[in-house]
Every structure is written in C-alpha cells, then in structure tokens.
C-alpha cells in the first residue's frame, strides 16, 4: 500500500496539470484580496463601514478560499480528477494489478493520494489568500483571542474534511467512469446540483414565516448540512452542536458512501 501511495503521489506531482493547479492556486489566492481592496478604494469605504462589511475581513476571505463552489475549490478537484483518470485512460492501472496489488489497495491509494494533494493544495491556497489579505485588511473586526484561534483550527479541520469528501467523490467517479471527460462532467454536475439546491433553500428560507419555527429549523438544517454551500464553516465565532452535526454527518456519510461504492465497483469492473 505504501509503495502504491508513493507512486500515486509521484504521478500526481509530476503531472503538468498539477503545476497548472499550483499557478492557478496562487493567482486565485491573490485575486480575492486584491479585488476587495480595489472595491474598498474605488467605493471609498471608510473604516466604520468596513467594520460592518464581511468582504473586508481576512478571516472571511480565508474561509471563502475553501468554498467548493468557488473558483479554486471547483477547479482543483477537476484537475486532480483528470490526473487520477489518466491511470485508466493510459492503462497504467494495469501495471499495478499485474504487479500483484489488490484492487482495494489501488482504489484506496488513489483516494488517499488525491486527498493529500487536494488538502495540501487547498490549505496552501487559503494560507496565501490569508497572507495577501492581511496586507490590506484585519483578520476580523473583533480582537484575535485564544478562542478565535481555537475556532480557526476547528474551522480549518472542517474545511479540510470537506475536501476529503470531494476527494472520495472524484475517486469514486474515476473508477466508475474510467473516462476523464465523464468523471469531470459528473463532478461539475454534482457540484452545481448541490449549489443550486443550496441557493434554492437559502432563497426559500427568506420567504418562510418566521413564526413557523419547525419549517425555519428544517431550512436552517438543510442549508447548514449542504457541504457545497459552506454556510457554516468560518462564518461565526463558535460552533453549536447542531452546526457540528450538520457539518460532520453529511461529509462523513458521503465520504464513506463514495469509498464503499468505489471499492465495490472497482472490484468487479473489467479493465482494458
């Protein structure tokens, strides 16, 4: 397994697309804080207004960088899924089977290597975003305390868990489809579908009667539990138990489902 993981990591890191992803990661990391700074300058927003606006806080920019529907959050999994699918389209997955590696090992190695690369790249992208944004904006409106640091760490963990889920989706799609184009299209479709559902629930919640507490609660949970909406992570100062459950349950269940699906399908799949 360790040998497979090493070779998969080497394969991903040696691919030109990974270099493209790194360049895009840096460009997109710079775009958000620079655009926000431009807006602040262009609209001549003073300090009082700034303290109210979320786009003028480094914390928000940092956690927005992890957004699944955002620029790099959408692009990176697509690029990694193309690299993972190459193992099937170039037939190099055959080498692993002929070398006596089990299909479970091959799938898990692909998933773990994808996860490591995606999480590391997303973390680097978010940290660069944070560093650039800190040049122009404060981290948050309130003073940075020990609890803020703890919140930052927990939020970071949740954000990375989100990308473990994404990695599980693209690993499952790559073995299900064995075709780069189809895997990418399906991933984008899944992403768009959940983003649309998230938008619909958000819009619908505006029109709900605030007196109807049950419906309000249901819509709140629907929004929080949508991993592609990123409605909770890094948006406040602390997490309630409902928040934690809403973040963890879909992500953990989704990851487990994708891994089981990927393993089951790959074990039975005929390879060319």
């Amino acid at each position, binding site marked *: 397994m360790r040998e497979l993981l090493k070779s998969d990591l080497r*394969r991903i890191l040696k691919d030109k697309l990974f270099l493209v992803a790194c360049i895009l990661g840096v460009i997109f990391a710079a775009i958000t804080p620079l655009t926000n700074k431009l807006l602040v300058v262009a609209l001549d927003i003073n300090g009082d207004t700034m303290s109210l606006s979320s786009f003028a806080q480094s914390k928000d920019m940092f956690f927005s960088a992890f957004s699944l529907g955002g620029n790099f959050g959408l692009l990176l999994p697509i690029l990694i899924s193309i690299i993972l699918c190459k193992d099937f389209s170039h037939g*190099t997955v*055959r*080498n692993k*089977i*002929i070398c*006596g*590696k089990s299909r479970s090992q091959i799938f898990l190695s692909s998933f773990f290597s994808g996860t490591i690369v995606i999480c590391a790249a997303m973390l680097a992208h978010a940290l660069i975003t944070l560093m650039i944004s800190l040049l122009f904006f404060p981290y948050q409106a309130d003073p940075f305390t020990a609890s803020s640091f703890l919140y930052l760490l927990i939020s970071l963990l949740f954000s990375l868990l989100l990308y473990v889920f994404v990695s599980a989706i693209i690993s499952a799609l790559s073995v299900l489809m064995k075709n780069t184009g189809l895997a990418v299209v399906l991933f984008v479709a899944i992403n768009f579908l959940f983003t649309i559902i998230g938008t619909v629930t958000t819009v619908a919640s505006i029109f709900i009667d605030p007196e109807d507490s049950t419906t309000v609660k249901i819509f709140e949970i629907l929004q929080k539990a949508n991993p592609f909406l990123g409605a909770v992570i890094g948006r406040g100062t602390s997490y309630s138990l409902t928040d934690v459950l809403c973040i963890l349950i879909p992500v953990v269940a989704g990851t487990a489902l994708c891994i089981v699906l990927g393993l089951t399908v790959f074990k039975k799949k*005929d390879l*060319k």
Partner: protein
Amino acid sequence: MDYILRTVNVSKRYRADWVLKNVNMNIQRGDIYGFVGENGSGKTTIIRLITGLISANEGHIELFGIPSDSPEITAVRKKIGAIVESPSIYRNMSARDNLLMQSTILGINDEEKIKQVLCDVELGELYQNPKKAGNFSLGMRQRLGIAMALLGSPEFIILDEPMNGLDPAGIVGIRELILKLNREQGITFLISSHILNELALVANKYGIISHGSLIKEITDEELRNQCRPTTVIEATEHQALWDLLSKDFPAEDLLHLARGVRITGAVELNALLARIIEAEISILSVNCYKTSIEDYYLSLLGGGRHA
C-alpha cells in the same frame, strides 16, 4: 508436471456474446508459448484474464498452481510481468522515471536494475535522457514496456504482440532477448503474435485460438512433423506428369495444379526427376519448400495453401 499456467474450461462473455468458450490451456515452466489467432479470436481476452484485469464467467485459471478464486492469486501475480495490448507507460515521464514508478510499485529501489533492463532492451542511452515517453516511437515504447515487465525479475512474462511497431533490427533484438531470458534465467513466456513465422523462431509450444475456442495446442516437434516438405513440379505435359506420379504417390499427397503437380511429403528428388525425364516429359520448373506454421495455421482454420 510443473505448470505455470492452466486455464480450466474458461469462458468469458461480454453481455450476450461469448468471447471465450471452454478454453483449456497449459503452459509448463520453461515454455515459450506462442499464442496464435486471428483478430478478435480472444487472445487478448485470455491475457487479460491471466493478468487479473477481467474475471471469467465460467471456469478458472491456475497461476503457479494457485486458482484464480483464491485470495493468494494477487500475491502470485508478483511473479509475472506483462504487456497487455499496448505498453502501459506514463507518457509525461522519461524512460527512467517510468521505470522508477514501476520499481516503486514493486517495492524495489535499485537504480542498477533500471539501468540493466534499459540496456537489455537496447534503450540504455535513454537512462540519462529526459525525453518524455509520449515522444517515443512505437518501437521504443514497446521496448520500454518490455523493460517494465522485466523489472520485477518475473518467472513468467506475457507479451501481447511484442513485435508490433518494431523495425527488423528491433525484432531480432527482442527475439534474442526472449531466447536469452528463457535459456539463462528459465523465464517462461506467453507470446501472442500475428507474425507467425517470427513466432516460430522462438516458440517451443503453440496454442491456436479461433472464435474464442482453443482449437489446438501443439509442441514445436509435433508441428515440425505436421509441416511436411512440399514439391511443386511444373511441366508442359502436366496430364502425363499427373498420370506418372499417381502411380508412385498416394492420392492424398498429390494435387493437380493448372500447370503441374504438387507433392506433399518427402521425395527422392533426383530419382523422381530422372523418371520424369525418362518419360519424356518437359519440366518447366521444380520448387521445393517446407510448409510453415502459417500454412499449418491456415489449414487448421480451414483455408489456405495446405492441401
């Protein structure tokens, strides 16, 4: 007998089409098994089954005595090296990087071995060359694929059309490499090829497959006995020649051609020619040749030159 591979009543279907039907194939240790069949006959499907890329619908495979449904089969595959259809290489990597990837998967970290296998397939000059494998010629890719198959020091090597895309010198090089590995290291080979006469220069056993069925397994010696010498004599008076030869040879060994007669089997040529001349028949031409594996193969498939 020490069997490296046995397929027992193996059948495979894709949807409703049976692409393999009850294939029973036996390869012993030390064999160079030539696998012969027309396009779409099922050669690559068998190779995929052996290498674990697909599974059989019926029957099973025994690799080094381990049945394919045993959990040990995965570990046993470490003893094989294979090229299936086309070499599985990383096109964005150099030859050395490809071999490094393969050695990482195999869990060996031996630069010397990488250098050695590259030299074995006459790609030694590529060890330091950063040229990407995607820019290699077909022949170079084929050789790199063979180098990758050799890296794990396998006991059994499966080569699917290894001569494809190779120039004449490359074909000779691969042939000599196969013979050397078989002779010096006792490596068993399963080689599928369309270039039958080329295969005949290395193989000592043949499996002939047609429409998903293994129609014949034959040793080199048996094949040599099957491939009898043939003599074609053309004459102006071909009817008279036919009448003369009909007295001396069994009917099944003779074939009346448009301008002469074909005799299958050994003949005392000098004596025969003397008799023809004595009968005052004017000989136009005499051709002697031995039927090849190609002739034998075509005759098995029910066509071709073999009478």
